[in-house]
């Protein structure tokens, strides 16, 4: 390891461009309301809005089809599942797990996209 110290000539790099600023962290960009910060935020909000709307629309949209279905063909009500009439089965039994599943999926995805956002903006 012990090497004799070598003398080296140090010169400034030959360029007129100012030295590159140390890049700011995303946190600082957002707090200082720069263009980049706005882009970060817009991306997060869009992602969350898309996720929320799609989970919401798929789940409630599926439910909202049912009255139409029963209005078109009331005879469907006579169809039986597990001893229950179809509307009773669908509305009392089947909706709950469906809503819970949708909610669970949403929470998982929303937390994931927030984690990704955090990693993105906290990168130095």
């Amino acid at each position, binding site marked *: 390891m012990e090497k004799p110290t070598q003398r080296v000539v140090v010169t400034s790099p030959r360029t007129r461009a100012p030295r590159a600023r140390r890049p700011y962290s995303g946190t600082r960009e957002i707090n200082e309301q720069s263009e980049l910060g706005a882009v970060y935020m817009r991306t997060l909000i869009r992602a969350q809005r898309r996720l929320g709307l799609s989970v919401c629309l798929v789940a409630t949209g599926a439910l909202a089809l049912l009255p139409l279905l029963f*209005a078109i063909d009331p005879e469907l009500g006579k169809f039986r599942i597990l001893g229950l009439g179809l509307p009773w089965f669908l509305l009392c039994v089947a909706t709950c797990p469906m809503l819970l599943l949708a909610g669970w999926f949403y929470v998982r995805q929303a937390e994931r996209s927030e984690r990704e956002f955090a990693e993105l903006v906290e990168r130095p």
Partner: protein
Amino acid sequence: MTSGYAVVAVLVVALGTILVGTYGLRVSRTTSDFYVASRTVSPWWNASAIGGEYLSAASFVGIAGLIFAYGPDMLWFPVGYTAGYLVLLTMVAAPLRRSGAYTLPDFAEARFRSRGVRAVASILALAIGWLYLLPQLEGAGLTLNTVTGAPDWVGALIVTAVVTVNVMSGGMRSITFVQAFQYWLKLTAIAVPIVFLVVAWQVRGSDSLTRPEYPVFRQDTEVSFQRPTTIHAERSVFVRGTGEIDGARVENTGVVLTEGYHRIGQGSEFTFPKDAPVPHLSTMAHNTNEMWSLPMSSGQDFPLYGAYSLIIATFLGTMGLPHVIVRFYTNPNGTAARRTTLIVLGLLSVFYLMPPMYGALGRLYTPELLMTGQTDAVVLVLPTRMIEGVGGQLLGALVAGGAFAAFLSTSSGLVVSLAGVLSQDVLRLGGVRGFRISTVLAGLVPLAMTFISTGMPVADMVGLAFAVAASSLCPLLMLGIWSSRITKAGAIAGMLAGGVPALTAGLVTMFTDTGDAWYEILLSRPAAWTVPLGFTVMYVVSLLTPRHLPSGVQRTMVKLHAPENLGLDGSGSSSSADERS
């Protein structure tokens, strides 16, 4: 069905609520404690409290009553009450918590930086809260009337008194304990009896619930008519008793009710014989049990419009209820707010399995309620009717206690949030004293309103409160959170354009008799036209007035959407996660 046990149960619930409340008093001291329990409540506690607060008279007695009377079309009430939380979870839960405001008007001000938007939101929150309190008090009156025969106003008065005292002394911290306890109490009170009732039904040969026959009396049944009633008999029935039929006085003798319509006087008591077909209320569709079990059987005009209007109101209205919203501030952060909401979805799903079972069994065992029109009482009457002796009485007492818990908890939550709005925005009285004065006012107004309303089913009344919330505060929250284009002018115009027609329609339905007019359904189920109106007006007016964009929208958006732990607040410096205390 006067029962000593039930009276005791109601008293125990009322006293227990006060006791738990005063226990909470010891730990709540500062103003911040009073309003949002210092934000130290865990998701499970919080979710139980939301469930306890949310499961109101409509859920406990109203839904079963409507299903009993009108069949599966009414299943949209429990489904909508639950699905509303999915919409709330996906669209507003986390940003609402991150806005860091205490009440809905606080949110309006934080987002729009405008006293005007705040004032409109305050007035609407008050209107929705009072509209929602009214059926709670009516339900309390009905319950006490069913179990003790006391006049309707007694129950309403008791609930108002207990709630006002409790809220005044403990504030919201104690209410969180009370509410969480109430959810589990209510679940027990509705789940335990139904287990016994289903067993009793099975033991007696599990008669089909959907036979193609009209409901009949299963035993000699004494029926008392609380108000003047017009009934229709399909076949002549021989009844005994005292009262008034078609204007003629009957004193303790037998009378033949011929086929056709009859007016029965208030306070009449008649005994109907076993196996006689049940006459039905003239204003209600008469269905065999088979027809009743099919969709679109409720006999209302425009059933499809009614169903969709109800769906829109309940799905979107939940987020605009003032007492539900205030719960989100007691979560420590946005992530916890989401998890809380998910737990709430589960808790509600479990609870809402029960009321339809009561409704269905009621067709077999308490058909006389179809004749008196007191369909909301089906949950309360069923246990004593199906199980004889002390067992039935005890189960009946449990249900009555649970129902009373429902009125107390929902009313408490509403009174807390209304008092918050009143003291901050209307009376402008700060501190604990202002909160107490507001509490009294928040309770007295709906109590006065109970004396002039026309006694429609409680779940329908609650549906109207949902419709107003969905057409005014829901657009404010949804568009305010997800679009940075909404202006102050747009927010105010949208809230008024949706809220005022919905509120007017609600008041007209509640306090006047619209009868069979074709537009009746447009007034009693207004959401399908007022909600789109509110959203459209808010968005279009905002696009037309781009100069009224609130200052610092971008910063507000950062605050609403960025996770708390990153120290982002869009203000350039400090990382205060919670600047308001």
